[in-house]
């Protein structure tokens, strides 16, 4: 069984140059644990295939139960030179919401 990230967290994205970042704010402790486990640079690499061309980092902020995802070479060169309609990648957060996450991870988080 899978659920979508949209059911576990809020997201918002921003830009600096050609780097897009997506803040993921978990609804609670179980959701945070599930996301922390599942949202890895490797999974993001295949999830954003064709969109993100550079390195990917994921940072943890346990005190606010949030993740910071940083995507390099993600905006077609950056706001001033990209051909994207969404020059600053505000909609990247909405793409993130589609990621599928196993519900089993969530139950594990609750038990822990």
């Amino acid at each position: 069984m899978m659920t979508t990230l949209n059911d576990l967290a809020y997201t918002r994205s921003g830009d600096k140059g050609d780097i897009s970042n997506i803040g993921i704010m978990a609804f609670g402790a179980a959701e945070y644990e599930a996301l922390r486990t599942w949202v890895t640079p490797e999974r993001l690499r295949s999830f954003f295939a064709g969109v993100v061309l550079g390195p990917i980092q994921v940072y943890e902020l346990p005190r606010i139960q949030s993740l910071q995802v940083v995507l390099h070479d993600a905006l077609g060169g950056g706001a001033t030179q990209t051909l994207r309609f969404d020059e600053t990648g505000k909609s990247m957060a909405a793409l993130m919401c589609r990621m599928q996450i196993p519900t089993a991870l969530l139950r594990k988080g609750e038990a822990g």
Partner: protein
Amino acid sequence: MKTVRMGAGSGYWGDLLEPAIDLAKRGELDYLGFDFLAELTMSLLQRAKRRNPDTGYIPDVVPWMRALLPITHGNGTRMVLNGGGTNCEAAAEAVLRVARDADLTQLRVAAISGDDLTSRIGEFRQAGVTLANMETGERSIDEIADRIVSAHAYIGSEGIVEALAGGAEVVIGGRLADSSVYVGPLMHEFGWSFEDADWNLLGAAITVAHVIECAGICCGGMSSQWKNVPEPWNMGFPIADFRQDGTAEISKLPDTGGLINQWTIKEHLLYETHNPADYRMPDGIADLTTTRLEETGPDRVRLWDMSGRERPDMLKVQIGYTDGWIAEARVLLPWPDTMAKADRCEEIIRKRLDIVGVTPRELRFDRVGVDALAGPLARRPRRDPEEIELRVTARVDSREEAAMVNREVTHVSTIGPVGTAFGPPVKPREVIALWPTLVPRDMVPVNVTFEEI
């Protein structure tokens, strides 16, 4: 315990004016800060100044000060802004003209300069500063040296502290770091210095500055909470009450729209901050991972346990340089066979560009409503959409080539599928690409000048 009360009056050039007026009137603020600058802005302003040496600052500064100065002059609220852009002296003079027109007296305005490095590139190269691109690393500045439009350092709070100590009621900087607009007043009020700094307090100041610096965007603007945000059209901008012990409360005025809760503050802590343990600003490095927060009332969030480390030796510099042109054109395709029509139009345009000999550096076709935002992640629609906008964009070397792309997109409405609708063309735009780099802090002295009436 001493508390400094600061409001955010603007988060970008073109922001709402009414919330700043409301804050000036009812906020009982010590300081009202304004950020007007995005990454591209300094290049645009530099070009404007080249055409007319009396310009180069944010034009909004004049109507903003016309509306705000008569309120703040006399109620003790001092204003700090980076709206001076590439011409702080001219902006300061403009502010004084506004004050004279409003019959204000005894007003002191400070202008901060030193951030403009456009004419100093050669000097840095001679001193052995590589100016390597922070993002791409390997490329040499020499590749773009003859196409540079502007180069500006993100400067910190030194100039603001000097200006406030010198009695300025309005402090106008150029490429002040967004956060310094708020960190500077805190340093002045609490008597902090960089020589004898408590870097955790500076980290706290940078964290709080970051939360409010985009104004309404921490108050339920651009928010995941949008369904629950009351009256965004009456958006209230944020207020930070910063206490001497390095804790703070974020709130907004009663009877304003917008929303402040744990989510709106969390989403802003994460907004464009990248590595949260290493949020580098000219005044210090904030560690956002230590921050704790809680809702302490309606539209009120408290922040504590904020921390930081010593400020970096290097300052970030943003260099803008010309890098070709962008053509953008669109046609609107009606049902039936919308997807097939879009495919056919794309094929026609590609063939036509071949025939007329235009080879763009990059060519993009968006089916707006289908894949313009999701790109390769888009799900193909199960049924043909009611209508599709085919948006065609191309990166080319010259204005002439951009015009040729536009012309070929226009042709598709006469040689392509029936019903292809077209509107007025979009003008080609020149690209100013950005080259972020670093320079040693000690090579960027800032200078403060005062003018008064």
